[in-house]
């Protein structure tokens, strides 16, 4: 299982958890597993089978866009971080 870090704005879709586990050998399989178990999260994250453009996905601290994208293989002990931009600062 791979630990997946859920951003604060998407925690409502996973019952408030900061981190959930997902199964899969590639990033795509992890996301598909998440989407199957948390359909509301899948609806926010995925657009036409791809990750929504406003969500960055990091595996082992690297943006998967700079690796093999969703086909990037997942190694033991790596953490997947889902990260949309946050605007807040001045507020």
């Amino acid at each position, binding site marked *: 299982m791979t630990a997946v870090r859920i951003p*604060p*704005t998407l925690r409502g879709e996973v019952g408030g958890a900061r981190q959930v586990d997902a199964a899969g050998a590639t990033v795509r399989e992890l996301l598909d597993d998440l989407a199957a178990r948390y359909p509301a999260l899948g609806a926010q994250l995925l657009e036409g089978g791809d990750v929504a453009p406003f969500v960055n996905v990091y595996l082992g*601290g690297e943006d998967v866009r700079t690796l093999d994208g969703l086909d990037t293989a997942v190694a033991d002990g790596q953490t997947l971080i889902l990260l949309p*931009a*946050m*605007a*807040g600062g001045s*507020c």
Partner: protein
Amino acid sequence: MPTYRELLAQTKAEIAEIGTPEAHERHGADDAPLFVDVRELDEWQEGHVPGAIHIPRGNLESRVEGLVPDKEREIFVYCAVGARSAFGAKALTDLGYTDVTSVAGGFTDWKRNGYEVATPHFLTPGQRSRYSRHLLIPEVGDEGQQKLLNSRVLLIGAGGLGSPSSLYLAAAGVGTLGIVDADVVDDSNLQRQIVHSTERLGEPKALSAKRTIEALNPDVHVEAYEERLTSDNVERIVGAGWDVIVDGADNFPTRYLVNDASVWHDIPVVHGSIYRFEGQVTVFEPGAGPCYRCLFPSPPPPELAPSCAEGGVLGVLPGIVGSLQASEALKLILDIGETLTGRLLLFDALHTTFDEVSVKRDPTCPVCGEHPTITEYVDYVQFCALAGRGVAS
């Protein structure tokens, strides 16, 4: 007992010496030695070898280990003519420094030969006292403090992030702070916006921050912009000449606008954002690393990007994130250390964790990429609204 002359001759016989032409040649080399000036403060202030560090002879033994921890580092000691530096070189050797040379002829000879001289601006006695804890740090010192006093930092927002960052930058002696904020102080701000106060309720934030900052440090000049940064005023404000921009905006259109302006004006941006217990900090340095659009090509739809006004924020969180921003800004000005360029720091106050992800430059970035497609300011509100519906990417 030997006379002074005898003692000097005896000391010189025990140490290595080098003439100023040879010392000058080494000064410009890639493996240049560290020049240590052991003269008094008034002599140093009238001019010194560029890049040298200053430790008066009287404090040499007590302070050198703090300033030069590497005892194998090659050191050229100099004074006015080569006498104090001879004794200084002997003292350093006795302390275990293995590669110490005294510059015979000293700074007098160096100047006479027409070699390059750095003349520091004077810090007033009041400034020497106010910034004494900076002056003691080798990475800051006199020259660094002068840099800070001559530097200009533009703060986007005088709110949660702008409060701590502006206060610390002002305390550090950053000479000019620009503050852009169109809001007025509201009582719901005071749980975290520590640059304001209860007596300032209803006052424009830019002016309230200016009053607090100028009371904290009269060395700092504040340029207050009581307006929202837009495509119409961005050239006037960002174009006013800034060394660093500290972005603590509260909305995506301003974030993208600040990004595009900073890329086109070649100004590094220290980015911070916060929500509830979590913060993000990074540095966007045009040319040296990614920009905001490389990191986030498009903003999330509004339902996934609630502001702190909608979602709340732990009051101390902007204190931590804004202080990190101030720290990065000071490093950029001083050109020291390693900034967050290319790294996004993720802070979680609820679990007290710092995570880091790498951020790379995107060669296809529409603003800083190889073939830019956005070359002038756009309608940023519309850009963000369209992206939110998944139209733009």
